[in-house]
Each structure stands twice: as structure tokens, then as C-alpha cells.
């Protein structure tokens, strides 16, 4: 029974990490669209290239943070959470 409980904990942690990493897909698509539109904007007004690039860079970095949050959550779920949850389980059983 204890092995089953530990197995469920480990499985759920791994599943949670996988689900968290789904958030990593969004920034890639968003950045792609943003750069495509920036290319269009520079094509229309080449004199604004520097300003568009700066805004683009900052925008992309902000968009990427979402993926970074997911990454950190996934790492914590894989590395830190299983041990902690098994400890809690053991304490509860006594």
C-alpha cells in the first residue's frame, strides 16, 4: 500500500511537470507572431528599425518569462516535490 502511495505521488509529480511545460509552447508562437509583425512594420517604416527592435526585444523577453515560470515549476515538481511529499506521507503514517 505504501509503495502504491509513493508511486502515485511520483507519478503525479511527473505528470504535473509535464503539464506545466505545456506553457512553454505559448511564448514560442507569440514571439514568432510578434517578430513577423515587426518585420512588416520595418518594411513599412525602415527609419523606425531601432525603436521596433528595442520594443521587440523587451516584448520577447517578457513573453518568455511565462515559459520560464513553467520551467521552474516543472523543475521543482521533479526535483524537490517528490521527496517533500513522501516525507509528509511518512510523517502522517507515523
Amino acid at each position, binding site marked *: 500500500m505504501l509503495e502504491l502511495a509513493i508511486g502515485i505521488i511520483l507519478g503525479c509529480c511527473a505528470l504535473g511537470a509535464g503539464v506545466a511545460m505545456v506553457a*512553454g509552447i505559448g511564448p*514560442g508562437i507569440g*514571439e514568432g507572431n510578434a517578430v513577423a509583425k515587426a*518585420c512588416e512594420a520595418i518594411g513599412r517604416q525602415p527609419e523606425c528599425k*531601432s525603436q521596433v527592435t528595442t520594443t*521587440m*526585444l*523587451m516584448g*520577447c523577453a517578457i513573453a518568455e518569462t511565462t515559459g520560464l515560470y513553467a520551467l521552474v515549476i516543472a523543475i521543482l515538481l521533479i526535483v524537490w516535490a517528490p521527496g517533500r511529499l513522501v516525507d509528509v506521507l511518512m510523517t502522517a503514517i507515523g
Partner: protein
Amino acid sequence: MKKVDETVRKETGYIAACTVILSMLTQAVFLVLGRWDISVLLGNLFCGGVAVLNFFLLGLTVQSAMQKEEKEAKETMRTSQRLRTVLLFVAAVVGVLVPCFHPVPALLSLFFPRIAILFRPLFMKKETSGKPEKE
């Protein structure tokens, strides 16, 4: 080798400077709490460096994508984002698992560029207000 755009260089410099300041702040907090050891500094340096490198690579990708067609630019950005996420993942795992790095400053350092961008409008306002107004 491609020449790095002036904007990319300037922004990376700004992010690097902010990362150094925030790293020093982190060290100071750990010192005040009495939990400072060399692993805190190493974790901070390692992941801070990776965060700045990630931003620089993003800049390079944006620079090269700007010279491409719309569809090609999209693909370039997506591929770059995937590869950079792998880089960050490896850095974060190394920062958490390797005992010579303290995990808290290591993970915290990855967010320093985001915090730097948060303060960016303050500096931009100063830059604009410093310029003489055109009549």
C-alpha cells in the same frame, strides 16, 4: 561572423548591468540573513550568466529574423525559443542539483532580466526627459 546590432548590444549591456546589481542585492540579503556561503555566489554567477546569455541570443535571433521573410522569421523565432528553453532547463537543473550551487539564488537569477525590464520605463522616461524639446 555577423556584426551585432547596436540596439542588441545596448540592451544586452543594460540587462547585464541590472543583473549584476540584482546579484549584488541577493548576496547582500543572504549576508544579512547569515546564510551566505560560496555556493550562493556561484549559483548567482552561473545562472545570472546564463540569463544574460539567453537574452543576448534572443537579441541575435531577433536581429537575424528581422532580415527574413515573415514566415521564415516566425520559424526562426520558434526554433530559437525551443533551443533557448532547453538551455535554461539545463542551467536550472544544474543550478538545483549540483551541490556547489545554492538553488535559491540560482533559480532567482534566471528572472533578473524580467525584473530589469520591469524597471526599464523608469530609465526610458529619464532618457526622454533629458532631451531638449523641439520647438
